[in-house]
C-alpha cells in the first residue's frame, strides 16, 4: 500500500472508533453580581455551549489562551465544579445526573493529571500510599499482597524504580513527581485520563520523557486522553484531534492535520503564527496591529 493510501486507511480506522465520551452543549456560568439590589443577575460565561466527542484510544487536545475556558470545561465535565447546563454521556449514562455510589463508580473510569507536580501530591504521604490511595478508596484489592503488587506494577508501568515506594514526594525531581501523578491516575485502569497542562512546569528535556510515557501508556492500555495545553508544539506532537477555544466557545475543531496545516478560523491562524519557532522569523508587526485593534 502506498504511504498516502495507508494514511487514509488509518484515518478511516480512527473515525470509526467507538465514541467513549460525549459532551453536549456544556455550560458553566459564574455569577459575578447583580444590576442593583433586585436587578438581573450578571454572569461570566466561562464555558458557553461546548460540545465534542472523545473516541476510544485517541488524544483530543483542547488549546487556547488563559481564560478561554479550557480548564473550566474539563473541570465541569468531571464535576470538580458543577456545570450550569449540558450533558456528559459516559457509558450510556448522563454523568452530570449521577449521584452517590453511581457517581463514585463512574469516576473510577475518568481520572486526571495535574499541571504542577509540586503542589498536587500530599507531602506527608509516601509514594506507595499516594499511588495506592485511589485503590484503597475503591476497595479493588482483597489482601495486602494484592495491594502491594498493584502499586508496584503501576510504578513499573510509569518508569518509577520500585525501591522508591517508601520515599516522600520532596525527594523526587519534577519529572519523577509527574510520573507519580500519572501512576495515581492510572492505577484503577481508567478509560479516560484528563491531562491539564501536564508538562508545562517541566524543563524541555524532562518534558519529552513525560510525553513519550503518556504515548506509551496509551498504546498499551488504549486510554483516551483529553489533553489541555497552551503549547502548540506539544499538542501537534501528541494530539489526534484538536479543539481550539476562545472566550468560552469552540471556534474550530478538526484533526491535527486540518488544524495545523489548514486552519480556517482567524483566531487559530493567529495562535499558530504566534509560536516562536527555530529557523522561522516571526512577523511581529501583525501582533502589534492585533494589539492596537483590541
Amino acid at each position: 500500500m502506498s504511504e498516502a493510501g495507508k494514511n487514509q486507511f488509518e484515518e478511516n480506522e480512527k473515525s470509526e472508533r467507538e465514541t467513549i465520551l460525549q459532551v453536549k452543549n456544556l455550560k458553566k456560568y459564574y455569577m459575578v453580581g447583580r444590576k442593583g439590589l433586585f436587578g438581573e443577575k450578571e454572569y461570566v460565561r466561562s464555558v458557553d455551549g461546548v460540545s465534542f466527542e472523545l473516541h476510544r484510544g485517541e488524544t483530543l487536545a483542547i488549546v487556547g489562551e488563559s481564560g478561554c475556558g479550557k480548564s473550566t470545561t474539563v473541570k465541569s465535565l468531571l464535576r470538580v465544579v458543577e456545570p450550569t447546563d449540558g450533558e456528559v454521556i459516559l457509558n450510556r449514562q448522563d454523568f452530570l445526573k449521577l449521584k452517590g455510589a453511581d457517581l463514585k463508580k463512574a469516576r473510577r473510569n475518568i481520572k486526571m493529571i495535574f499541571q504542577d507536580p509540586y503542589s498536587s501530591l500530599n507531602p506527608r504521604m509516601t509514594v506507595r500510599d499516594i499511588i495506592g490511595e485511589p485503590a484503597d478508596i475503591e476497595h479493588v484489592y482483597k489482601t495486602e499482597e494484592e495491594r502491594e503488587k498493584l502499586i508496584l506494577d503501576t510504578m513499573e508501568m510509569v518508569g518509577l524504580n520500585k525501591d522508591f515506594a517508601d520515599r516522600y514526594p520532596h525527594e523526587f525531581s519534577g519529572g519523577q513527581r509527574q510520573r507519580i501523578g500519572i501512576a495515581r491516575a492510572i492505577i484503577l485502569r481508567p478509560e479516560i485520563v484528563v491531562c491539564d497542562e501536564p508538562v508545562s512546569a517541566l524543563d524541555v528535556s524532562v518534558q519529552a520523557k513525560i510525553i513519550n510515557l503518556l504515548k506509551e501508556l496509551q498504546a498499551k492500555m488504549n486510554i483516551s486522553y483529553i489533553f489541555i495545553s497552551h503549547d502548540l508544539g506539544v499538542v501537534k506532537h501528541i494530539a489526534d484531534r484538536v479543539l481550539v477555544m476562545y472566550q468560552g466557545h469552540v471556534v474550530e475543531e478538526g484533526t491535527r492535520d486540518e488544524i495545523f496545516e489548514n486552519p480556517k478560523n482567524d483566531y487559530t491562524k493567529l495562535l499558530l503564527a504566534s509560536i516562536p519557532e527555530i529557523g522561522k522569523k516571526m512577523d511581529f508587526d501583525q501582533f502589534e496591529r492585533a494589539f492596537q485593534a483590541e
Partner: protein
Amino acid sequence: MERENILEIKDLDVRLFTERGELPVIDRLNLTLRAGETLGIVGESGCGKSMLASAIMGLVARPGKVTGGEILFGRDEKQDLTKMSAKELRRIRGTGISMIFQEPMTSLNPLMSCGRQIVETIVAHEKIGRAEAKARAISIIRSVGIQRPEKVYGEVPAQLSGGMRQRIMIAMALVCNPELLICDEPTTALDVTVQAQILGLIRRLQKEKKTSVVFISHDMGVISQMADRVAVMYAGQLVEYAQAEAIFTRPLHPYTQGLQAAIPKMNEKKDSLESIPGNVPMLYELPKGCIFSPRCAYATDRCRSERPQIVEADGHRVRCFLYEQGGDAQRREMKATDTSETKIENKKKIGEEGEG
C-alpha cells in the same frame, strides 16, 4: 567594523554558601555583549541564568556571593560592577542597566498607580520637575504601544492584563534610556499571542533606542527570535557560545544538541521525542569530570574524570573534548570511529540508570 563591547564578563564566579558547602552557581563564566546586540542566554532550571542576571545588576543576595571575576560595563571607560559600592550601583541601575522580570505583577507596586511608579524612577535619577516627569511618563507609556496613556497612567497594576503590565514594566525599565536591558524570562508567564506582542515590542524599542539586551529564557524558540548571539548554560557553566544561527543550525555541544532534539517541532511528525537521559545534577553533587558526562551519549573515561576547558571550533566556543582538535571534520571522524560504539554502550548504560 566590529562593534565595541558594552559588557564584558570575565571569569565570573558566584557561589552559594550553604549547609552543604560552597556551591558554584556560576563557574568561571566568560561572555561579552556588543553594543546594540542581543545576547541570548538559554538553559534549564538551575543552570545559573537568573543568577547571572542578578550578578550583572549587583543584586546577588545571601547566601550567594560573587567570589571572583569581573563584570565590566560601559563603552569607553569600563567600570567593574562587582567592585562598585551600593550607591554607585544605584546610580547605574535605571540609567545604565535596567531589568525586566518574569512576573510583572510581583515586581510592580500594587498600591501605586502605574504612572507614579514610572515618575518615581525618573525623579530618582534626574533633576526634573514633577510636571515634566509626568509628561515623560505618559510619553513612554505611549511608546510601549498603549493607546490611552493618560488613562493607564492613573491605573494600578491590578486593573491591567498581564501583557499590559509587562508593557508598563518595559516602559519603566526604558524611561531613563539605559544602555543595557536585561530581560529575565519576560514572556514566560504570558499567553503565546501576548508573548509575540511583547517580543515584538522589545525588538522595536531596542532598535529605536539602540539598547543592548541580555535576554534570558528557557525557550529555545523565543531565543531564536530575539538573539544575535547565544550562550547555552548548564549547571552553572557555559557549555556553548556562538552566533545565534550557528547555535540553531549546527549545535556542537551534546547538551545543546539534546536540548534542541527534545523540543517538539511544528514541522515534523515523530512517534517519540528524543530526550536527554538522567537529570540536571544538583550543585552539591556535581560530577567529577565534565558536568554533562553522566547524561552524555559520547562520554568517554576521560570525560568522566577530567573537566574540559572551552575550546574554539567552527566559530563556536564549546566546552567539550570532542572539539579539542577543531571543528566539524574532527567530530565526524570521531563519530565514525570509536564514538559510535561508545554512544550505543553509553545509551544502554544511561537508560538503565536514567530517571526523569
